[in-house]
């Protein structure tokens, strides 16, 4: 008996009991569908996190002043200014920190910004043009401020999407005058939308002005110290760790802090943070897949159960088939193929359902739909394997039947 014939006989046998076949396959259908949609959820979350880190800029180091300490109370990173503007210039000097490609300071303050007929509380950033390169942030209209604007302390502002919308609605604000803390600024550009940061903040809720202007107009005093954050873009993941070592050595030298002593500055590596976070979502994905795999296993046990019932019910049929010439391996193959048809068919339906479910979920979470062909192939393969594994015992039992005993079974 050839394979095509065997499959035909198996499909006919299953067709005699359609409801039962469907209910048995349902276990596998749910299993495969949940594997596919769970992995798609995990992948979607991963992509979401990646996107969030990308919005902060990639291959980035963040250098901040050390913490203040008074009477046992420690104020946290940046609470005590220790980094001087000279330190910043040293970090930006390619002969001292060759691995740093771009260096920008970020000063920030909360403040109200006003247009002709609206106002909006936002975060004001003072920085240099390299900032936009490091953050990979391009304007949708207008031009960003340049080095000469910083040197000249000019009153120009670059608006994030949120601020632009709140103040000007749909009209283009480039060239308009806004007031920040009462000081008039000309809007030079509007930035493209970046969405949420990894911490959930709205990155687009920002007004960015030259750092010199910020110092003169927004914050007063503390001139020798950088009361903010220094961003260092290194261009590549390897460059980031090189730059980290070089800056650490440079600042320890400038601040006269020996190796092993507690530094009065902190360097954070965002690439490492992103990697850790991605590992977290990868763990989540594996966890979801594992839960789904358990349901696939349960589906397989359902198939084994029904195949055992089926072998018992059809003992006389097996006896007759043997009496007219079926060899033990013909009987084995027949029941095995029946189990595989059940599980593989269930797997195919499960894939369709899983893809549909993943599509619905990605639509409701607003994630990109991520269905990997690898996962689809794997779950269909697994479902066929489930059929073999769980169909083998009942089929083997059937093939071991003695023809005359089987025929005489009531």
């Amino acid at each position, binding site marked *: *008996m*050839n394979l095509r*014939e065997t499959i035909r*006989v198996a499909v006919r046998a299953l067709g*005699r009991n359609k409801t039962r076949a469907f209910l048995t396959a349902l276990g596998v259908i749910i299993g495969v569908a949940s594997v596919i949609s769970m992995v798609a959820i995990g992948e979607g979350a991963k992509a979401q996190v990646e996107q969030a880190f990308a919005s902060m800029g990639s291959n980035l180091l963040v250098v901040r002043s050390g913490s203040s300490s008074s009477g046992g109370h420690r104020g946290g990173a940046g609470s005590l200014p220790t980094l001087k503007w000279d330190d910043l210039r040293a970090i930006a000097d390619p002969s001292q920190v060759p691995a740093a490609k771009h260096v920008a300071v970020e000063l920030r303050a909360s403040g109200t910004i006003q247009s002709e007929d609206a106002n909006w509380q936002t975060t004001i950033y003072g920085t240099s043009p390299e900032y936009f390169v490091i953050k990979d942030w391009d304007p949708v209209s207008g031009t960003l401020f340049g080095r000469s604007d910083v040197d000249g302390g000019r009153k120009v502002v670059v608006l994030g999407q949120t601020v632009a919308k709140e103040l000007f609605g749909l009209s283009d604000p480039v060239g308009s005058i806004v007031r920040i803390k009462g000081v008039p600024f000309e809007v030079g550009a509007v930035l493209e939308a970046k969405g949420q940061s990894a911490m959930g903040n709205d990155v687009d809720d920002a007004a960015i002005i030259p750092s010199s202007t910020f110092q003169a107009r927004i914050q007063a005093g503390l001139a020798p110290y950088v009361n903010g954050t220094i961003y260092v873009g290194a261009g590549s993941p390897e460059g980031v760790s090189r730059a980290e070592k070089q800056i650490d050595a440079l600042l320890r030298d400038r601040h006269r802090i020996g190796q092993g002593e507690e530094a009065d500055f902190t360097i954070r590596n965002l690439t490492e943070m992103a990697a850790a976070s991605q590992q977290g979502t990868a763990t989540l994905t594996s966890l979801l897949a594992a839960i789904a795999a358990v349901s696939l296993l349960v589906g397989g046990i359902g198939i084994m159960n029904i195949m055992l019932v089926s072998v018992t019910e059809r003992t*006389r*049929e097996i*006896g*007759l*088939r*043997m*009496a*007219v*010439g*079926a*060899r*033990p*391996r*013909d009987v084995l193959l027949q029941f095995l193929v029946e189990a595989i048809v059940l599980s593989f068919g269930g797997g195919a339906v499960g894939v369709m359902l899983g893809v549909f479910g993943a599509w619905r979920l990605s639509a409701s979470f607003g994630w990109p739909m991520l269905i990997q062909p690898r996962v689809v192939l794997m779950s269909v393969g697994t479902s066929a394997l489930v059929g073999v594994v769980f169909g083998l015992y009942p089929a083997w039992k059937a093939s071991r039947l*003695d*023809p*005359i005993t089987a*025929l005489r079974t009531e």
Partner: protein
Amino acid sequence: MSAPPPGPALIAVRGLVRVYRSGDVDLRALDGVDLEIHEGEFVAIMGTSGSGKSTLLTLLGGLDRATSGTYHLAGEDVTTLSKNRLAAVRNKLIGFVFQSFHLLARTSAVENVELPLIYAGVRAAERRKRALAALEQVGLSGRAHHTPAQLSGGQQQRVAIARALVNGPRLLLADEPTGNLDSRTSLEVMALLQGLHRAGHTVVLVTHEHDIAAHASRVIVMKDGKIVKDEVQEPVQAVVPP
């Protein structure tokens, strides 16, 4: 005992014993049977319930194995064959007819008849042709696509006979083929078997009814697992009353 009719020995059985173990008790269903059946014979095996007649037929049909003794079918020693080889013997040399028909439910007559050909590896078109021919031979060509539930008992047994014949076996075995039928359909089935015998088939049937055995040309009587009588007789022609 009369001398067996001339011709090659199709079945040669020597010292056949079949012991069933149930608990601590050994039941000797066959207790040393010697038997020769030649090509073209029509043999009825008679006996009371528990005489061993059905056990003998089961062994002749290759559905069970003897505890000891030898069985040669068409010159081949069947007692030592592997399970797979024995299945091939059942498929090609033997056609078996059961008291309870054993047709597959919800499966048409022609598909039931095709069953042995599937295991013989015959291709679908050829299978269908031969199955329809076998159904015609038993007078059921008009019922090819009926399922067993749509057929009478006599018709079902004729489908079963067609299934036994379809692969051109050397030996046709029937275990109480009329046991589930009324007297009229019993006569129909016996007339069919006599016709097959006349056409050259070797037929061995088991029955406990003298009327049925009367249609055979040789009658073997068994008691307590042994052959007690083996006679050639003039068969009564089975005529179905109008």
